[in-house]
């Protein structure tokens, strides 16, 4: 008999207006990797939050090692050996790595004070034991997202968790980092007999890592199957209720004028350090240029510089042969640029505003949406909003809903809908499908290709190599603020490109395409 370490019985969670979990029965076996998949908003995170004591279930019971257990706050979960790594980082930027790791379970000195030295030592021991490298002395705000993910896991391990809940841990990781994480997970399960519950949207990861997989749809548990019986098709069908096909996308040849030209661009990063050290490239109409790189190598700074959100130190950017020098984002947009930013919540949207208010950013002073550029003309705006909602399949009861109450995938669709609706010759797109379910990924990819085929020049930054390979005509690799390689898609494998992304190989730029 396999032992069920956790059993959820009849778990129901009602949010105002949303039944996030509907009578869910799920058991987790000791020592397994249990994957949970489902569309955006299916209720995965909510279910896990209930298990971790962050949300109170409206009804239902949790059995821990066979005993009914009330988990009313995370402290109780921690005491039962449950640890959770959240979809969004739960780290305090102003504290050091070590402080974050021990937070809540500090070592004391003289019974009163925090023993910071011991915290550092213990962190170093954890690093040693699990092979997740971090510098305990750095502040969290100074480290990359990949490192932050490691800190999250170390945090959970430090608290002595036997059951690890990982909510989309790979969404922001590079393939290498993902591979590292998986080997750690395998070790934890095999050697230390820990149990892992992992939520992910990437079905290959499910197949590669898990023993069993549960599928959720619209708050209900569709079913749990053994991974060995599963394929991507089966899972996708269970999730979405239909077949999801990643067919090859049809790319048309279009005219090939230069739309974006970047010359010897130098830009400083957040802490004043050089983030880009002289980058040159161009993007032509009807072309998708992908940028591949490990996060934190200057991609974010590049896009911010191109879109006017960051000061340019040296070099020049031309859009349709006009320089962006000294121009603010509005003026750059006027040159024919639209931008899907990497951080949709911080940059791409206003959570506290309605969908329509988010849709009208950028047209609020343009005819016919604003009469004489002053008076907001509601009717065409509302029509536009409804049209975009329909075209981009945003799942919402109405356009007057606040964006914060939407699921991440739907938020992303709003940003894409708005930016694509401007019909600009240049599109700058970053991480278009981060945290988005496969149905939506398929849809967004199609939209991007359509734009390309219509003749837009597209600059695409993504941490997903699959995505880059699927969409791009050409790929640049970037490492430490410099371009290390340039490839026509199809002429290189993922493995090879990894060497360029990590600076292990480099070609002089002329030698590329």
């Amino acid at each position, binding site marked *: 008999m396999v032992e069920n370490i956790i059993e959820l019985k009849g778990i129901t969670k009602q949010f105002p207006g949303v039944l996030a979990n509907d009578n869910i029965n799920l058991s987790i076996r000791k020592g397994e990797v249990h994957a949970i998949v489902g569309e955006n908003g299916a209720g995965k995170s909510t279910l896990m939050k209930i298990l*971790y004591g*962050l949300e109170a279930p409206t009804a239902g019971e949790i059995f821990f090692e066979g005993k009914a257990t009330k988990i009313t*706050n*995370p*402290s109780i*979960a*921690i005491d039962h050996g449950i640890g*959770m790594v*959240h979809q969004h*980082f*739960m*780290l*305090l*930027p*102003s*504290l050091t790595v070590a*402080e974050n790791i021990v*937070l*809540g*379970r*500090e070592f*004391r000195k003289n019974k*009163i*004070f*925090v023993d910071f030295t011991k915290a550092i030592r213990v962190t170093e021991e954890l690093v040693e034991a699990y092979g997740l490298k971090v510098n305990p002395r750095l502040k969290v705000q100074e480290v990359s997202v990949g490192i932050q993910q490691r800190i999250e896991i170390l*945090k959970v391990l430090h*608290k002595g968790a036997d059951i690890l809940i990982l909510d989309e841990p790979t969404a922001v990781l590079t393939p290498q980092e993902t591979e590292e994480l998986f080997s750690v997970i395998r070790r934890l399960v095999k050697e230390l007999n820990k149990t892992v519950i992992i939520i992910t949207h990437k079905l290959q990861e499910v197949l590669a890592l898990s023993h069993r997989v549960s599928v959720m749809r619209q708050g209900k548990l569709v079913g749990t199957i053994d991974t060995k019986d599963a394929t991507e098709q089966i899972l996708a069908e269970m999730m979405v209720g239909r077949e999801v096909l990643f067919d090859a996308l049809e790319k048309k040849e279009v005219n090939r004028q230069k739309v974006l030209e970047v010359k010897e661009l130098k830009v*400083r990063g957040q*802490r*004043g*350090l*050089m983030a880009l*050290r002289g980058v040159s490239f161009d993007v032509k109409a009807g072309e998708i240029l992908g940028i591949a790189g490990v996060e934190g190598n200057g991609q974010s700074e590049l896009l911010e510089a191109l879109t006017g959100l960051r000061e340019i130190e040296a070099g020049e950017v031309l859009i349709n042969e006009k320089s962006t020098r000294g121009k603010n984002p509005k003026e750059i947009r006027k040159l024919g640029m639209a931008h899907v930013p990497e951080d949709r919540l911080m940059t791409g949207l206003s959570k506290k505003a309605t969908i329509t208010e988010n849709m009208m950013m950028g047209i609020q002073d343009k005819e016919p949406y604003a009469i004489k550029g002053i008076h907001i003309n509601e009717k065409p705006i509302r029509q536009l909003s409804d049209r975009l909602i329909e075209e981009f399949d945003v799942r919402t009861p109405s356009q007057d809903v606040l964006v914060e109450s939407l699921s991440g995938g739907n938020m992303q669709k709003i940003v894409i809908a708005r930016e694509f609706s401007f019909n600009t010759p240049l599109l700058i797109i970053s991480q278009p499908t981060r945290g988005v379910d496969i149905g939506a990924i398929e849809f967004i990819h199609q939209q991007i290709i359509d734009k390309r085929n219509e003749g837009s020049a597209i600059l695409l930054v993504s941490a997903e190599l699959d995505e880059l390979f699927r969409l791009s005509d050409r790929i640049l690799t970037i490492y430490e603020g410099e371009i290390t390689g340039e490839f026509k898609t199809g002429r290189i494998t993922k493995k090879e490109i990894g060497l360029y992304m990590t600076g292990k190989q480099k070609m002089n730029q002329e030698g590329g395409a």
Partner: protein
Amino acid sequence: MLGQVFNLTLIQNTIRTATPLILAALGGLLTMHAGMLNIGMEGMILLGAFFGVVGSYFFASSFMGVMLAVVVGMIIGLIFGFFVIELKSDEFIIGIAINIFAGGLTIFLLRSIFGVKGAFSSPDIIPLPRLNFPFLRGIPMLDIMFNNHSIFVYISWILVIIAYLFLYKTPYGMWIRAAGEYPEALETNGVSPRKMKYISSIACGVLCGFAGAHLSLGYLTLFTENMSANRGFIALAAIIFGASNPIKTFGAALLFGFFDALGIRLQVVGIPSQFTQMIPYLVTVIALFIVTKRHIAKRKKTQAEEGALQQP
């Protein structure tokens, strides 16, 4: 002429003027760290001042006065916490309501308890003790500066250090800061941010109680209507000025006390009182400007240097 203005009593004066500000500001910076801006400090100080007098008068003990002020401070802190944490009300509004409430209640109770309006003083109000360190007697400068202050002057100094250690060296301090910075993150670590917020708002009530009791039993020995006289707001300014760091806030309060004291003295030299009274406020704005400007310049410089080093 300068000698008339700058003398040792100016320092004494500074210390006395700053003490109620320091006490209240230490409370306010705790709530600030926990993510709540408390403009109800003004009212909390006033209530502390009133109940300090009540306790001291009826129990013939200044200690009981302080205790009563503290208990009332805790209750008000709890109410502030309840509305801001539980009901998620706007902290500004709650703060203002507390101020109005304190203004009305103290006048009302002044009349119902002591049968007077406006002010209450009596020899039966036992003042807080003053401290003298005999070993400082011999050194005139230190004698004037550090001797013969009311006990809370010394307590406030100790509290500055305690607050600093508490915030930056103890788990609770870390948790309070975390509760303000990213409450969800703290909660996932098994510590309730709600609890931390309550702790800080109650502690703020206690410290404002101290500030009030000091005002009515240490600094003065009487109660008058509205005797907090905007000290809560100035304490708030000190907190913002001091970036919520106890040491820097202490400095800001002293600075404010100094310029207030200086203003009083400058009148004697013949500057119109309206201008001398402006000094602390103007100095605050100007000092903020200078400090920030310097900070920005410094940052630019280090950036340039780092950049230069980085160039291949």
